[in-house]
């Protein structure tokens, strides 16, 4: 095993690799899609798009060349569960990709692995080679004539925005990783203009588990709109950071008890692009219908300065903005300037309100998810921590 920090037991460790694919290949692709649909599985990268619908749309798109892409560009601050999945359960991920290929009739799969995870590559290549030898990849998979599918690994080159599916495809095509306008969506106009499904690492692994254990087993946990378990990456001011698995719908309060972060004053859910949830809202649930998340949970203890948090995330977005659209490119810089004014205790309420309105404009007018979510943390900190951020003096301290 390579790098692994997990607590408790993960479902992925209990599901035997291979079972899901056996079950899938004994059924028609349409049956497999119905099975995934019945489970209610939604995208584990955070956006929560129904997985079966994405695959079904790609399956129905005309074209002889189709692609299955695994988004392993795990760059969201505070997220590391995909690293653990790839290190410990790569077989399940490749199995899920193969099942997706079976559903949409793809012949080629690509894992887009972030440059920061280059050290995982030899391990992943070895797993792929083993699967080829076992006829789980290649021509006539598992003895089924006509089912040809193979997976290759493409390396990223260091760019957060490439986690956005159309930017990822641009990058695969040898371009700058700038998001495209949508529509058209990748399901009909994806990699090299062909129908493509792009899914998160964890989504593929769950798909394999659902085939192995059944849709009812999966649905037993979670809420009606957010079925199943989800992996969480927990870091920050808590006693037991690491990778956790919980049913969706868990409240932040219950979550903090599990990880030993009961005294938190705020929790960042969903990374830099997510939202900063203050103590008063810890009764809220981690679910697509309440606070959606790709699994990043960063705990802020009472000693933390929330303006430092806001500044850190804005610096991140300024660096990672691709610069295509103005609201994102310029807005992030303006918001950081505002945070620095607040830190010096020199921001008027009028100007702060103007900055908030700029943030809302960015949410509406930016081209892709990066710019649309970049102001989130700024806005939640400004609305929930007024006492802390207004009228600062040099003597200010968090506690």
């Amino acid at each position, binding site marked *: 095993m*390579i*790098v*692994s*920090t997990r607590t408790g037991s993960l479902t992925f460790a209990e599901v035997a690799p291979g079972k899901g694919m056996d079950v899938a290949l004994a059924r028609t692709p349409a049956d497999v899609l119905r099975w995934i649909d019945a489970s209610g599985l939604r995208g584990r990268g955070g956006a929560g798009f129904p997985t079966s619908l994405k695959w079904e749309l790609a399956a129905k798109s005309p074209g002889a060349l189709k692609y299955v892409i695994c988004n392993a560009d*795990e*760059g*969201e*601050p*505070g*997220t*590391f569960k*995909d*690293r653990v999945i790839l290190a410990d359960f790569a077989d399940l991920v490749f199995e899920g990709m193969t099942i997706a290929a079976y559903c949409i009739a793809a012949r080629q799969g690509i894992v887009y692995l*972030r*440059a*920061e*995870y*280059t*050290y*995982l590559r*030899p*391990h992943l290549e070895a797993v792929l080679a083993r699967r080829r030898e076992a006829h789980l990849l290649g021509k006539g998979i598992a003895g089924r004539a006509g089912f040809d599918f193979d997976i290759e690994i*493409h*390396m*990223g*080159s*260091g*760019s*957060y925005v490439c986690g956005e599916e159309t930017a990822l495809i641009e*990058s*695969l*095509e*040898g*371009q*700058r*990783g700038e998001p495209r306008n949508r529509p058209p969506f990748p399901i009909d106009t994806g990699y*090299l203009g062909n129908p493509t499904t792009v899914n998160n690492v964890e989504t593929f692994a769950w798909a394999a588990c659902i085939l192995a254990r059944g849709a009812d087993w999966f649905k037993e946990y979670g809420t009606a709109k957010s079925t199943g378990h989800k992996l969480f*990456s*927990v*870091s*920050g*001011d808590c006693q037991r*950071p*690491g*990778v956790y698995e919980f049913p969706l719908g868990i409240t932040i309060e219950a979550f903090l008890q599990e990880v030993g972060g009961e005294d938190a004053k705020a929790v*960042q859910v969903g*990374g*830099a692009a997510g939202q900063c949830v203050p103590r008063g809202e810890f009764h809220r649930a981690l679910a697509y219908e309440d606070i959606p998340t790709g699994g990043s949970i*960063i705990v802020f203890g009472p000693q*933390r300065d929330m303006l*430092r*948090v806001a500044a*850190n*995330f804005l*610096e*991140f977005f300024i*660096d*990672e903005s*691709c610069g295509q659209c103005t609201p994102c490119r310029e807005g992030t810089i303006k918001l950081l300037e505002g945070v620095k004014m607040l830190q010096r205790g020199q921001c008027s309420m009028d100007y702060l309100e103007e900055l908030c309105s700029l943030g809302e404009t960015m949410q509406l007018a930016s081209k892709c998810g990066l710019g649309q979510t970049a102001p989130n943390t700024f806005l939640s900190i400004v609305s929930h921590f007024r006492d802390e951020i207004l009228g600062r003096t040099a003597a200010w301290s968090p506690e």
Partner: protein
Amino acid sequence: MFLTERERLRDELVELADRFGRSRGALLFILQEVQNRYYSISEYAMQVIADLLDIHPVEVHSVVSFYSFLNERPQGQFVIRLCRTITCDMAGKDQVARQLENDLGITFGQTTPDGKFSLEWAHCLGMCDQGPAMLVNQRVYTRVTPEKIHGILQECRQRFGVHAVADGKELPQ
């Protein structure tokens, strides 16, 4: 660059273009390989790649300048990337950064005069539960303290001449 060096580089680029295919889709593969071998992608290399793929050199430059792991400026043999994102920040990355600057005698964004080390900031390395984290080339170090820096640099110096590549077995924990 000497003429002979240029010729050798050109031959290598032709070989890479043939290996990855002379198409736009091969561009990043070629650039990544050049970066690995030469620690940077020179203007000359970009021009030759553009010729081989039949695209404008500006397009090659636009791609090189977009990605943080591709560099126009020459980089050291060991590129140290310290994570600056929030959890590593809370875990004490500032102190680690200061000690790196002290021990290397350079600031972030610079390369040591002997060409051995470059110091860069990185965004989230996906090691948030074990911060502060940093990458030295492809190798990841976690729970780095200012005190550990000297040992890590010594380890690199001893491997001088070998571009450090983690093989998966050397990783922490």
